[in-house]
């Protein structure tokens, strides 16, 4: 259950080794949280993540579930396995995702398929499975890590942008569909976040770090927001970027 001061007892992270996911956990795991599930491909790596959290919160009961983020067909089973280990899912943070910056999909089309399966198909099926369970619970929050890249897909990483555009639209509509059920979705749209995923890449304007994103997510959960931007001014920047005529958009150095 969630409590009256905004603390959820049972938290699940999908993409258990995601850097942003971990930083969000450090913020949302506080006194009152009793069970945590890290759902990941690499349990050893996820274990290292959880050890740090258990160090700070000795009462925390941590479970691990292995999954393949691209395997859409397995998602229903994965969510059932999570629920079997902890009961109600109060908050699910979905941070699975590939970036593949600089990938050459002309020569490696399989990478494209993999990215779509992880970022879009697998995640969409996962979100449906979570939504169905939370509908039955009468409450629950799904935090979806989208990206501003989906706001206007750019030439530099079109597949990533397209998966996020699709995911973002789906997540918003899913939240709408859940209206009145007690369950809801928070769509998080970070800009350029400095993580291991973006090492070596040129920073975009209004870039941010995982801590700042986590802080915004925490507040978004507490105030029951539908969409949060990280950092917040990106909202206004993308309102403009989205509406630029194609001729101007293509000339921008992004």
């Amino acid at each position: 259950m969630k409590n009256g001061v905004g603390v959820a007892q049972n938290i699940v992270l999908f993409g258990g080794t995601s850097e942003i996911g971990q930083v969000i956990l450090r913020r949302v795991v506080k006194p009152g949280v009793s069970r945590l599930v890290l759902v990941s491909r690499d349990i050893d790596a996820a274990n290292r993540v959880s050890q740090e959290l258990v160090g700070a919160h000795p009462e925390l009961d941590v479970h691990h579930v292995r999954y393949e983020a691209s395997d859409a067909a397995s998602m229903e089973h994965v969510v059932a396995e999570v629920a079997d280990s902890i009961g109600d899912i109060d908050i699910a943070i979905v941070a699975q995702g590939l970036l593949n910056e600089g990938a050459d999909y002309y020569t490696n089309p399989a990478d494209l398929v993999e990215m779509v399966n992880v970022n879009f198909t697998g995640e969409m099926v996962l979100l449906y499975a979570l939504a169905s369970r939370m509908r039955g619970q009468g409450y629950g929050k799904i935090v979806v890590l989208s990206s501003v890249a989906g706001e206007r897909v750019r030439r530099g990483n079109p597949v990533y942008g397209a998966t996020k555009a699709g995911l973002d639209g789906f997540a918003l509509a899913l939240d709408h569909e859940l209206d009145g059920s007690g369950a809801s979705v928070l769509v998080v749209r970070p800009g350029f976040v400095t993580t291991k995923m973006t090492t070596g890449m040129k920073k975009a304007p209004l870039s941010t770090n995982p801590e700042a994103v986590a802080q915004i997510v925490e507040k978004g959960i507490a105030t029951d927001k539908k969409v949060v931007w990280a950092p917040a001014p990106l909202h206004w920047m993308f309102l403009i970027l989205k509406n630029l005529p194609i001729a101007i958009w293509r000339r921008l150095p992004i």
Partner: protein
Amino acid sequence: MTMQRLSGWGRTAWTVADVINTTDENIMRSTLASVGKRGAIARGLGRSYGAAAQNAGGTVVEITSEHDPMGIDAVLDPISGILDVASSVSLDSILRMCVPRGWFVPVTPGTRFVTIGGAIASDVHGKNHHFDGSFGQHVLSMTVMLSSGEIVELSPETNPAWFWATVGGMGLTGIVIRASLQMLRIESSQVRVETERLANFDAVCDAMSGDGEDDSYRYSVCWVDLLATGSSMGRGVLTRGDHASAAEVDNSDPLHYDPRLRVSAPGWVPNGLLNKLSIKAFNEAWYRKAPSKRHVGMESIPAFFHPLDGVNKWNRLYGPQGFIQYQFIVPLDRTDVLRKVIETFSSAGVASFLAVLKRMGPQNLAPLSFPTEGWTLTLDMAAGTKGLAELLASVDSMVLDAGGRHYLAKDSHVAPSAVRRGYPRFEEWMSTRDAMDPAGLWRSDLARRLGLVDPRRNS
């Protein structure tokens, strides 16, 4: 049945349940027969602050009769003062019916908008706990619908274990259907109130201590200014009194009772209206308003017992994020802990609009009844206060380490271990509960969070 979003009076932790509003036993019985695996819980007027009367994804049986065209389902014996009343009836309705006839409810909490069912399930207490005990001690008998649909009659004589498990049992043993209460004889609807301003925490404790004169007053409670610091830390306004006799009341109709609602809080209050500055200003004014020397006056029942009921929906004043009420008790000799808690809150800058201190009398026979001999402090604070979870967790440990406990009807955050540490007879209550509800049908959000029901059953 309709899907409805519910919260407690604090307006936090909303969840959705299938809600059915009925006072009809047959409808209740058929509803219970078709309840799914997320179970059911009874709800009255939704005045408990936390998640005691909501059931995420399950069924909520709302049992109120505020708008019953047939009037209220209660019979008062004018000789003995025994009231036979349906669980759906509120203290408000009972007072309207009984005060003009010279009878008062034996115990009233700070609001009269609670049902009899809720008053029993929470074993509510009032300003007279040191004198009269809590609500359950005035219940002569009650009928309860078990999860099987069977209705049993419980009293302290015929089935003490089940009776006392239901008193303070947070609705997790069954649905209270009717109760028989011993009312209190009064000659007037006025209360003779002595008001006294106390300059600091020590003065407050001295004035209310058991060795003092406190025991000679039926009602006694102290408002405490949690934002005062330094030498005036813990200053307060103590009010004590008893029902006035007819002779004391200068009125041709000494039992006249008119509890009209005055104003409603608007629905658009933003988060943060009640903040440290506004509350500090209020506290200062409230303290200064009280006479510096002891003062005796007459107050009406609503003014003395239910001042907040004067503002309809006052819980909206905290804005959309809602608020939490924190009430704990520590043993009589642990005023040091009380002081430490007050210091912790005031140095963290937690602004509490209402902070009330009371010395409680002995514990009754109910394993989950909150009041026990000691000091109880009640305060409320905005749920969105920064760092609240961490702050409360540290105060919880101070309270539990001192042998204290938290009030479940108000709780919205404690850990499951807090109930087990604070209530030494918890396991005994659990086994009585399981015997009364072998199917494990009763469950609420509070019960889920605190593990008051067997967690291995469903969820």
